[in-house]
């Protein structure tokens, strides 16, 4: 079997007495869309924070394409192909949409340290930025200041910034939060399209069960620091434990 | 040799108490308001100058001066928080820091205008003047007094914070501002109260320093704020325990430096700060970032 894209080995993370990860182990292979679900406060966002380097793990190891990234700072993990988007819009507010995308594009192209060449003279970067903007339909807003965008557009920008580094593994933290149904459908189509093109493997933290079950190839259920179920959507839907912990929520129709 | 060492230690411990008072006010204000008050050294200086003036005016009564002096500074602190700082809490951090810094500039010159740019001689405190022989050498009685008064004040402060209702609110607001507001604490009033209390601590330090420093100068605020910064970096910003221990360490280090390597005395404290920064960046009792 080929090296998994992501391997998590006995990962633990706790805040005082609250255990958000309890010796979790799993593997994710390249390709496809995996969802992580679980009751609120189960630690899904924390898991992403630990995997992306925002928070340190208490114990355990993380491997990206076989390379141990447990101690690496965030920007090094990004260079190795990992990225994430945020649940709460987290853009560069005073910069234009174009500039928001330009930063990760320059970072990816290794051109970010050029301190003398005028930005205007970096044509390759410009094309890359426009293509990202086309993919999320924000071309018309290219010169709008990010802080002045509508909320829905900001969410699109949010995901676009993460896509701009062309990650191999992309964590989306509740990508449809706060979106109206039309925007929701659009972003899901985008995710499907991108996933199909093969370059990026998606791991999505979500609440909306419709999305989870219609979109994912694989679902992992996180509850109180443990993965209580891991498999295809159908498998998870019919699991007893999962039903119990989601009592009251619509898991199966 | 031994009595030299002992004296240097004792002097250092006494010296640390003044920095501690300023640092404790600084760290308390930071813990609750999340503002680093650059002007805290100015409060120390103003406390010293007000106490000096009052004690002369009240017939050389040091204790009256010590009681009343800091209150004047508290009034100034109140005005600063209520009419200036309050409006900049939602500004970006650099602007908040610069606001407090503006007051440093203002008070530095105000002191020069009101009291002259030269230095004023320290008066003696009747009853605490003179010295006491320790291990064969004379040690100033006033320093001994500080060595007792300082930790006593620390104890009182700790008791207030741990055991009283007001203290509980301060500690709650310190760790979770939104929660405190949600349970009905009037945050703006609390902020003002904490700022004024912190001001009082700093000014008290200045007042106590009047008989100790030998000379009151307009530069005394600047030196003490740097030391207070070093103390809170070492002890951890927001931690009163850290401030106390940090101040003791700085006091001792400074005392040893002055006695044995005069040219580099301040340098030692900066080296220690650099070491702590590399080894334990949040300070000994600070929150990990």
């Amino acid at each position, binding site marked *: 079997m080929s090296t998994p894209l992501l391997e998590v080995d006995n990962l633990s993370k706790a805040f005082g007495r609250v255990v958000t990860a309890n010796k979790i182990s799993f593997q994710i292979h390249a390709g496809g869309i995996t969802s992580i679900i679980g009751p609120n406060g189960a630690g899904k966002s924390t898991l992403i924070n630990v995997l992306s380097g925002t928070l340190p793990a208490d114990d355990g190891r993380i491997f990206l394409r076989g390379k141990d990234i447990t101690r690496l700072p965030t920007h090094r993990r990004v260079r190795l192909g990992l990225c994430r988007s945020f649940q709460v819009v987290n853009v560069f507010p005073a*910069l234009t949409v174009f500039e928001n995308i330009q*930063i990760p594009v*320059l970072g990816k192209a290794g051109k970010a*340290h050029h*301190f003398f060449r*005028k930005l205007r003279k970096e044509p390759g970067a410009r094309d890359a930025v426009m293509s990202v903007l086309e993919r999320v339909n924000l071309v018309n807003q290219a010169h709008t200041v990010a802080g002045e965008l509508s909320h829905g557009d900001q969410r699109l920008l949010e995901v676009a910034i993460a896509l*701009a580094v062309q990650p191999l593994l992309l964590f989306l933290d509740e990508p449809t939060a706060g979106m109206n149904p039309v925007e929701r459908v659009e972003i899901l189509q985008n995710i499907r399209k991108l996933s199909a093109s093969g370059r990026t493997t998606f791991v999505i933290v979500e609440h909306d069960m419709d999305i989870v079950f219609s979109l994912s190839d694989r679902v992992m259920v996180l509850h109180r620091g443990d993965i209580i179920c891991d498999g295809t959507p159908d498998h998870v839907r019919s699991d007893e434990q999962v039903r119990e912990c989601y009592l009251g929520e619509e898991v199966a129709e | 040799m031994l009595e030299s060492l002992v004296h240097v230690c004792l002097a250092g411990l006494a010296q640390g108490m003044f920095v501690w008072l300023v640092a404790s006010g600084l760290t308390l204000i*930071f813990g609750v308001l999340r503002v680093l008050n650059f002007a805290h050294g100015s409060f120390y200086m103003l406390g010293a100058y007000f106490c000096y003036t009052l004690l002369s005016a009240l017939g050389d009564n040091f204790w009256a001066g010590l009681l009343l002096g800091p209150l004047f500074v508290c009034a100034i602190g109140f005005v600063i928080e209520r009419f200036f700082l309050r409006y900049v809490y939602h500004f970006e951090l650099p602007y908040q820091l*610069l*606001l407090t810094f503006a007051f440093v500039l203002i008070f530095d010159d105000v002191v020069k205008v009101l009291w002259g740019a030269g230095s004023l001689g320290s008066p003696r405190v009747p009853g605490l003047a003179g010295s006491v022989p320790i291990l064969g050498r004379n040690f100033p009685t006033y320093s001994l007094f500080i060595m007792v008064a300082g930790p006593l004040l620390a104890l009182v402060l700790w008791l207030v914070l741990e055991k009283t209702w007001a203290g509980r609110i301060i500690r709650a607001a310190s760790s979770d501002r939104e929660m405190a507001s949600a349970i009905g604490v009037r945050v703006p009033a609390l902020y003002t109260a904490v700022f004024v209390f912190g001001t009082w601590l700093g000014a008290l330090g200045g007042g106590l320093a009047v008989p100790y420093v030998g000379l009151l100068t307009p530069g005394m605020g600047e030196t003490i704020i740097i030391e207070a910064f070093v103390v809170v970096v070492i002890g951890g910003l927001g931690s009163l325990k850290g401030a106390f221990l940090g101040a003791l360490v700085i006091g001792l280090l400074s005392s040893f430096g002055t006695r044995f390597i005069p040219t580099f005395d301040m340098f030692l404290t900066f080296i220690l700060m650099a070491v702590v920064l590399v080894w334990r960046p949040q300070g000994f009792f600070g929150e990990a970032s």
Partner: protein
Amino acid sequence: MGRYKAYLLFGLMGVLLVGIGLLAGRFVLYLTMRVMLLAIFALGYNLLLGRTGLLSFGHAAFFACGSYGMSLCFLHVTPDPLVGILAGVTMAVIAALIIGFFCVRHTEIYFAMLTLAFGMMIFSLVWNLRSITGGDDGLVGIGRAPLLGFSIARDSQFYFVVLAFFVLTVWVVHRIRSSAFGLVLAGIRENPQRAAFAGLSVKGYRLAAFVISGAFAGLAGSLAAMLESNTNPFSAHWTHSAEPVLVSLIGGLQTFTGPIVGSLIFVVLREIIERFTQNWMLWFGLLLLVIIMGFRGGAMGGVERYFAQAGTKPQEEGRP
């Protein structure tokens, strides 16, 4: 501001400055040089404050490194002014690298405290090492040997050296601001966490900005030592660190020309105030208060907003 309008304005400024150099009396020459030196200091500094969002209270120390580095080179190594300036800038850069290394790993509050403390550490060194630095007297007798064969002993001649370095600074800072590096700095100011997720080492870029601004501070300090013929230990004091901050604020933190305009206002205002009272710090403190409470955009901030609203598309000069 439209690009051609900006070039025109800078051209005019250049002509004006050259004119002053050729025609003005000693006092105006001296004052203009002081404005230019302060502008060099502030332009570099604003790369760190306005662009990268880091407030340092220790940059006076790098200015002093420039002053003392240049002076020590003149007194003990060679009177060649270019070598002296290089020595000053190098000393400032080394100090900025070391101090920056300790400081950029922290943000905001700790950063401000630490830069202040380390800056004062340098001040205490300068003050205490009398034998090397002259202590509270400073180093005296710093002369101006001929530069590339040209005599610069007179103020009217040295003026053009200062002008040349000023123009150089303006050009370099402009290029930095319009480069990829400059954009990344803005990103780091806006959202350091997201910048990390763009694969960029936030610490590394901050350190670079710190060192670059330190280098310009050193340049200003070196030239200042040559202008005044002596060094001043208080140039390392933290209250001197307030000058580039004030200047940038007065002129407008997010603008390119802000530090230049702010320097002019600062020097002129200080001259005026000092005619009436010694307590100029009090008045600048009050000015700082007013700006923070009311006019954070600064002088140029208002001007640029006006131009932006007037319909011209914002070009690099005006972009944050």
